[in-house]
């Protein structure tokens, strides 16, 4: 008898499209999940990993056509099954967890009801025994005060508790297979660690898990086998050790090289020579931006509580914190888009935060900003050319080219070309749009660029390209960066100095290596301990 809980051979999925040929979105995927093991499907957006997972529970979608030589669960074929057969199997023999419990659980119902529903659908017990079971399940996944929490709605719970409640609803009937689709995305690093711990406990108890993620580091923590998908096909498969330490396929290698961390500091992440040293910029001791004792309150709650920092010419100051840490508010104050309740911000020695609007405008072209979502920062009526020309018009440096030529040269310096001038940003890819946003940012020859989660929404390989681009630009133009992110690896890779924020306070500040290798504050220590690292495997 085979030890394979799930067997997939030559799985192919096509997406039917109106007035067009069907798209082949999953190509000849084969794998087998063994009992008690964790198999990870890793890939970027569009790799087909989520669709594959959904096909395993018969929820691929009506527009999709699924075909396979073998697609089985515990030896039973999954193709061509009736809906009523699936209703019996889903939840009882295989559990499915989605990302972001805020929308994956019904926001109008208490989480206890959602979990009880999983039991009721399969005729388990009666109302009273179900209630007890719900509490037991919540305790199993580590939710304290289970009885009280069960009566709360997802919006009333913190991110970690929500996600755990979601897991509880999926394991209610103790299925021996669990499929988790990006269960830790959109979670803070500390919460992410907790959720992975829950999954590890399931594995220890003998549940088999299929984990889908774009994050190799997360996967490295609990996966036994890793499958790398690109464009619908599996490009690499093997044990976690093999794939992470001796990747064979160039895509996997590129994926691993693209991950920013302390090891990649000063190196290129992408392109033809990842790992090669990146050109360093010239730094000086001139203080460009200085914030002194910034305090900002919203509705009685301190968004920013007494934070100070300095930014010198040519350097990158990384501001790192989880959600609610106040880093975004701080960046807006640094940009003088909001005034602090007390404290001040100075630019090149001049008072910036409390200056008159006219004085501020004169300085604004020296401080640029790049946002997390570039599309929302572009006027929907404008093409790329309009966006760039608008910024170029504000440039006070002597113009040696016509504005149009300058626009083209800006596009070229961010890795795009003249052909992009007439494009609509909405029709460009995420990476291209961010490049346009960066081109706009450097159009006025700024001295400081504020990057507010500028790479957080990008796939890892695209992120790597953008980070390399930012490093190159810093070397060429001597610009300083105020780099805000929740991603510790990115921060460590990019920053010279780091400021760690928690609940509006600056808990630790200093040189990047100091803060990361010798953290003194318990919060920083906890953050770093929660960080899933690829390196963890190398030490073993």
């Amino acid at each position, binding site marked *: 008898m085979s030890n394979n809980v799930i067997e997939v051979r030559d799985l192919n999925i096509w997406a039917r499209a109106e007035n067009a040929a069907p798209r082949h979105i999953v190509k000849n995927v084969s794998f087998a999940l063994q009992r008690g093991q964790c198999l990870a499907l890793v890939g970027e957006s569009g790799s087909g990993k989520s669709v594959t997972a959904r096909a395993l529970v018969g929820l691929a979608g009506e527009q999709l056509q699924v075909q396979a030589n073998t697609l089985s669960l515990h030896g039973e074929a999954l193709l061509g099954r009736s809906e009523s057969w699936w209703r019996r199997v889903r939840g009882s023999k295989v559990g499915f967890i989605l990302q972001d419990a805020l929308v994956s659980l019904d926001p109008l119902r208490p989480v206890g009801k959602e979990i009880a529903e999983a039991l009721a659908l399969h005729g388990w017990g009666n109302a009273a025994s179900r209630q007890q079971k719900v509490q037991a399940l919540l305790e199993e996944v580590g939710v304290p005060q289970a009885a009280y929490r069960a009566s709360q709605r997802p919006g009333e719970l913190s991110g970690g508790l929500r996600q755990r409640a979601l897991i509880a609803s999926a394991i209610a009937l103790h299925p021996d297979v669990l499929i988790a689709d990006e269960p830790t995305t959109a979670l803070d690093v500390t919460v992410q660690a907790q959720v992975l711990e829950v999954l590890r406990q399931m594995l220890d108890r003998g549940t088999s898990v299929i984990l889908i993620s774009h994050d190799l580091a997360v996967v490295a923590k609990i996966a036994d086998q890793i499958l790398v998908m690109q464009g619908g096909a599996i490009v690499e498969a093997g044990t976690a050790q093999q794939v992470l330490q001796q990747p064979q396929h160039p895509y996997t290698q590129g994926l691993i090289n693209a991950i920013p961390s302390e090891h990649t500091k000063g190196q290129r992440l992408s392109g033809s020579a990842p790992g090669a040293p990146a050109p360093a910029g010239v730094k000086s001791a001139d203080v460009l931006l200085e914030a002194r004792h910034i305090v900002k309150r919203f509705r009685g709650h301190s968004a920013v509580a007494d934070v100070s920092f300095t930014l010198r010419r040519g350097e990158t100051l990384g501001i790192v914190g989880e959600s609610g840490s106040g880093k975004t508010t701080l960046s807006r104050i640094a940009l003088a*888009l909001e005034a602090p309740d007390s404290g001040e911000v100075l630019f090149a020695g001049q008072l910036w935060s409390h200056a008159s609007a006219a004085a501020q405008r004169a*300085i604004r072209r020296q401080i640029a900003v790049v946002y997390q979502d570039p599309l929302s920062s572009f006027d*929907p009526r404008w093409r790329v050319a309009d966006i760039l020309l608008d910024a170029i018009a504000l440039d006070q440096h002597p113009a040696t080219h016509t504005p149009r030529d300058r626009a083209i040269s800006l596009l070229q310096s961010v890795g795009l070309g003249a052909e992009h001038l007439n494009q609509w940003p909405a029709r460009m890819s995420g990476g291209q749009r961010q490049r346009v946003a960066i081109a706009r940012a450097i159009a006025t020859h700024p001295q400081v660029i504020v990057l507010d989660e500028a790479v957080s929404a990008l796939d890892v390989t695209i992120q790597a390209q953008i980070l390399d681009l930012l490093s190159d630009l810093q070397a060429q133009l001597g610009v300083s960066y105020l780099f805000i992110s929740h991603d510790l690896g990115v921060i460590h890779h990019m920053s010279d100095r780091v400021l760690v924020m928690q609940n509006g306070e600056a808990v630790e500040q200093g040189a990047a290596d100091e803060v990361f290798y010798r953290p003194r504050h318990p919060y920083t220590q906890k953050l770093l301990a929660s960080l899933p690292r690829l390196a963890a495997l190398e030490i073993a």
Partner: protein
Amino acid sequence: MTTHLTDYAGPRTQRAGWQLPVSVLLSGIVALFFIVAALTPGALATHDPFATDLYRALQAPSWANWLGTDDIGRDLYSRIIWGTRQSLLIGIGAMAIALFGAIVLGFSAALGPRWLAEPVNRLLEILLAFPTLLLALLFVALLGPSASSLLISVGIGTAPGYARLVRAQALQVKQSGYVEAARALGHPWHRLFIQHIAPNVFRPLFSLVALGIGQSVVWASGLSFLGLGVVPPSPEWGALLEAGKINVTVAWWLEVLPGIAIVLVALSFTQIGRYIQQRAEGEKR
């Protein structure tokens, strides 16, 4: 009546290019017909709308009188055609007043300085507490029944609803990422307004105009139907409905057919308005 329907765009058509959906094509034809009727009624009418012929009173629709005759023998079809101009003009005029009021109130409420925005917002809340018809009735009571009072009353009655839409759109644009990005670049406020805020707020208003004209015609005719608007013997559609009320038991065509004209105008303009809205939204996404 329109305020809520325009908040929701219809299902997005996936087609690229210039294919017109059938419904929009039909709406265009119907709207065009009425516009021609308004401009040159003589070209489309078959009889003199004021010519009476007591021997042919209360005749059902026939080849001689396409839509029948009324109680003193006037041809209904011709009266409807001749009434188009007045009905449409009142509708357009009312919409113009409503739009003007909506823009003034909406922009002040969303973009004005505190001392202006607060009172305007309170005023809007109060005006929105009046059901549309009642607000219009208040002004009809004030001004007495006539075509111009109808225009003003319907305009004022529908203005708060549109003002709410304009305000919501202006707020959304004001708080958008691109306005903030432009501000961060260093553009002064008036440039923000001219370059970004005004164009993006006005864009959805174009569809509103078409929708609103249809609705205004309905409201205005309704008031005339109650005897509070245009008075007979004018062939304005609402007045036609009012005049025909008495004979409804014997001459159904006098009540049903002018109503169909109203419905056709309302539906065709609404459909055109929604199509414009869909095109504007789908274009740049």
